[in-house]
């Protein structure tokens, strides 16, 4: 039992922004008020900020992709974060080892993270890695947007079969939701091509990108999964691509869900470029921001870039090849039979680069202008940069002065090509709590997370920030306080004290079981047929719960 006393609690879900006590019992927030302090571990949080544990909605923290990146980049692991002792050794710069990922997250007050792209064929590997990440809760989203069986069901216009297939895959793979990456484009890459608009057709199956996206949204809503489909749009990283993003968002028109969005568009920064080429590339956020703010069925995350080292890794095979050609840097590609592709290319974001500076500004424009209830902070780790720089992003959003200082470092082309210099808004602490806690929890459909109401997971963070005396001009202090939590409590256990790891526990891996809503019988002949083309036997395909460290099945239906 833990009692967090006198802290300034910000909990937008329950409308709290005031001094109060929090009582933690059996790993949950309790509303009991007769508390014997002698039986509790008491944390005095007078004059400190107390919030729920943060959630990273999109970070490539496990799976074949990041691990190939590790194998290709030993240069990444010269930074020592923690020596071995009571806890594990932790190393890594932008790519971190699995122990380092868990430790670094909780040090900043993050207690949940989502691996957003796992090829099903390789998902057992993904779970093995997730199981090696200490402390945090996690989940994985299997990739659907370039799966031959998805194309087949879309071509047959059979949404019921598609929904059955989705629930079959989630159960087999212990996955949490539906990820879509460059739909159709990655399959086109198998022929050396790509998809450049939502009307492009997929070779062999003759279905359009538009049909794939709307089909997957409809199937996802038919199942009413906790999370909506989670999309990485076509044309990522290409000047002028904001139009494709807007076209994609419009596909959600007319489809509704009372609990949440029906389309989550991820790392939007990379898909919000204007211009016709690199010479006139600029910010294309205006229309996107308008559309997201006026729609109640679309959400986004930022995809901030951080100046410095990064390792790009996506299931977007053709994009990674283009980046390899552009940068002439080393390149990993992994084509996955019948399902998807993958690529990894290292990159440095330089403030001296006009394009990188504009990208940095685009994400901040999204962070400042999109409604915090529909927006989440992310770097698309490790594509935009390391997740341990989230406090930097939060502080940039909180402090105009900090932004101006950072803008001085950036290329002056930014002044012309982005809207950021003219934006005066400073986000409030409550906005930041939304963009890191309540919004990702609602978007993901994790109702016990992102808030501190009764029964919520006891994931609680105490920061050395006094909201009553908050001054955004003291940005160095804010960034430092956000980087290093005074206390992080995960599921009722203190895991961080004064910015140092204090406890080592194992979190849960959440997965969604929607098989009650569907019947696998209707897709049986298709599965039989397509497993002739796999190189793994159908009986050996998938992940069993007993192989996982701490699986949590979430049943819908």
């Amino acid at each position, binding site marked *: 039992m833990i009692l967090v006393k006198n802290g300034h609690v910000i909990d937008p879900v329950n409308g709290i922004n005031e001094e109060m006590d929090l009582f933690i019992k059996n790993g949950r927030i309790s509303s009991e008020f007769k508390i014997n302090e002698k039986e509790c571990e008491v944390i005095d949080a007078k004059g400190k900020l107390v919030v729920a544990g943060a959630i990273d909605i999109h970070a490539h923290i*496990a799976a*074949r992709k*990041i*691990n190939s990146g*590790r*194998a*290709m980049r*030993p240069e*990444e*692991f010269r930074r*020592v974060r*923690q*020596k*071995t*002792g009571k806890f*594990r*050794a932790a*190393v*890594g710069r932008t*790519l971190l*080892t*699995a*122990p380092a990922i868990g430790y670094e997250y909780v040090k900043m007050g993050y207690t949940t993270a989502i691996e957003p792209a796992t090829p099903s*064929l*390789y*998902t*057992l*590997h993904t779970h*093995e*890695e997730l199981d*090696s990440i200490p402390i945090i809760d996690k989940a994985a989203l299997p990739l659907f947007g370039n799966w*031959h069986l998805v194309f087949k069901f879309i071509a047959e216009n059979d949404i019921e079969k598609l929904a059955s297939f989705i629930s079959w895959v989630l159960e087999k793979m212990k996955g949490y939701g539906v990820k879509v990456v460059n739909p159709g484009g990655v399959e086109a*890459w*198998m*022929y*050396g091509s790509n998809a450049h608009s939502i009307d492009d057709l997929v070779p*062999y199956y003759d279905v359009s990108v538009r049909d794939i996206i709307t089909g997957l949204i409809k199937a996802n809503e038919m199942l009413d999964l906790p999370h909506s489909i989670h999309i990485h749009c076509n044309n990522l990283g290409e000047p002028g691509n904001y139009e494709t993003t807007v076209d994609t968002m419009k596909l959600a028109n007319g489809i509704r869900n009372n609990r949440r969005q029906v389309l989550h568009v991820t790392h939007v920064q990379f898909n919000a470029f204007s211009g016709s080429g690199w010479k006139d590339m600029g910010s294309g956020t205006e229309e996107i921001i308008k559309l997201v703010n006026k729609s109640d069925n679309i959400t986004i995350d930022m995809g901030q870039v951080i100046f410095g080292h990064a390792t790009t890794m996506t299931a977007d095979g053709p994009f990674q*090849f283009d980046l*390899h*050609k552009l940068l002439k840097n*080393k*390149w*990993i*590609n*992994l*084509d*996955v*039979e*019948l399902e998807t592709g993958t690529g*990894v*290319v290292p990159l440095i974001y330089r403030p001296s680069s006009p394009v990188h500076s504009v990208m940095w500004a685009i994400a901040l424009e999204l962070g400042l202008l999109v409604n915090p209830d529909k927006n989440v902070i992310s770097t698309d780790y490790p594509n935009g940069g390391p997740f341990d720089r989230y406090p930097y992003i939060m502080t940039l959003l909180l402090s105009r002065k900090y932004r101006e200082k950072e803008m001085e470092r950036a290329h002056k082309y930014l002044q012309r090509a982005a809207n950021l210099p003219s934006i005066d808004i400073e986000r409030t602490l409550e906005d930041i709590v939304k963009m890191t806690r309540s919004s990702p929890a609602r978007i993901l459909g994790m109702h016990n997370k992102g808030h501190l109401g009764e029964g919520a997971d006891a994931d609680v963070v105490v920061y050395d920030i006094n909201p009553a005396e908050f001054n955004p001009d003291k940005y160095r202090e804010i960034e430092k306080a956000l980087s290093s939590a005074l206390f992080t409590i995960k599921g009722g256990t203190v895991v961080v004290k004064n910015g140092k790891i204090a406890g080592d526990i194992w979190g849960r891996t959440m997965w969604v079981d929607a098989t009650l809503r569907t019947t696998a019988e209707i897709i049986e002949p298709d599965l039989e047929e397509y497993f*002739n*083309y*796999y*190189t*793994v*036997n159908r*009986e*050996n395909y998938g992940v069993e719960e007993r*192989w996982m460290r701490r699986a949590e099945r979430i049943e819908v239906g």
Partner: protein
Amino acid sequence: MENVTCTFCGAVCDDLYFDGDEFRTKDFCPLGEAKFSRKKRIEYPTIDGKKVSYEEAVERAAEILHNSKRPLLFGWSSTVNEAIRLGVILAEKVRGIYDQCASVCHAPSVLAMIEEGIASGSLGQIKNRTDLAIFWGCNPVEAHPRHPTRYSVMARGLLTKGRADRKVVVVDVRKTVSALMASHFIQVKPGTDYLVFSAMRALMEGYEDAVPEEVGGVRKEKLIEFVEMIKSAKYITILFGLGIAHTRGHDRNVENVIKLVQLINRYTRCILQPMRGHFNVVGAGEVAAWECGFEWAVDFSRGYPRFAPSEFTGVEALLRKDCDAALIVASDPAAHFPRAAVEQLKRIPVIQIDPFPNMTTLLSKVVIPCAISGIEAEGTAYRMDGVPIRVKKVVESEYWSDEEILEKMLEKVLKLRED
């Protein structure tokens, strides 16, 4: 039992029949059949040749590791990921060296990958799409016998329906039995692969004048024909073996073929696949990568991982007499390391965990027999393309699994550290 997974080579076939009561097999290749047959086992744990209990052996092993300044923990490619993970953690906690079989096998390929990355794919990409398969410096018929039928040569896929839809080229220094299944055989002179790759890159980019009349024993016209064949194919897979990675040029050869593949991808699609040997040598690298950042040759003596292939591989560390104890798991370095390294192994206390007696057993102080992964113990293994496949327990056994032994050993070591 149906759908049994074979734990011999990197092809990790998972479509086999094995009757554990009578040790009857069906559909296995000769290599797998040999593994899934009744063989002489290490009968019980021993210390200095004397029979002891599992508990005593594990305790003694933990003491040796704990009291050692810098033990070598080597092997791992023939056990499952669950055991490998514990091995990496054990190496970290005893501040030793973690190294695995790749360091004497496909390490040059990994070094090349560090330089250039690699454009690769799962084996189903060969089965379903590949219309031109090129085997270079490898001999699948003898080393991965079911690879050609299951994945590459005869496999019937979605777009490429079978052997008739697929051209097969074998490039090697001699006409191997694998060359018999090829539509084209190209014989290169030993040690000239680098030159041939360079010539092909030049031809690919239109620098015909820069290429001499003969490269590595291959006529220029034949190379031009080969490059044209590649350019006109839709999806090419190049499979390579130690014929490239362990001949003159080593990692530079692999780097050159990776660059060739990068170039081919500007014209058509192409992937590259190393023919990995032991069934879970990929896992021995992957698990280490996520646990400590590096795949092999990792030293923990400073309390954090460091990678240096010229210093921290098993062979190098033994040659320099850096290690004062060794734990050998699922491997036989005494039979495969250079003589001077084996002599050093003889001087230090060696702990062995293995189902079968081998040369290393003869010089081990503590010998701990274990259940055979894939027959008596389950777990996860990574096929040569990294696809994770569960290997099964099909026979009951009194032997402890690698995972159980290492778990207990790690517990004991942590206890000794606390004291």
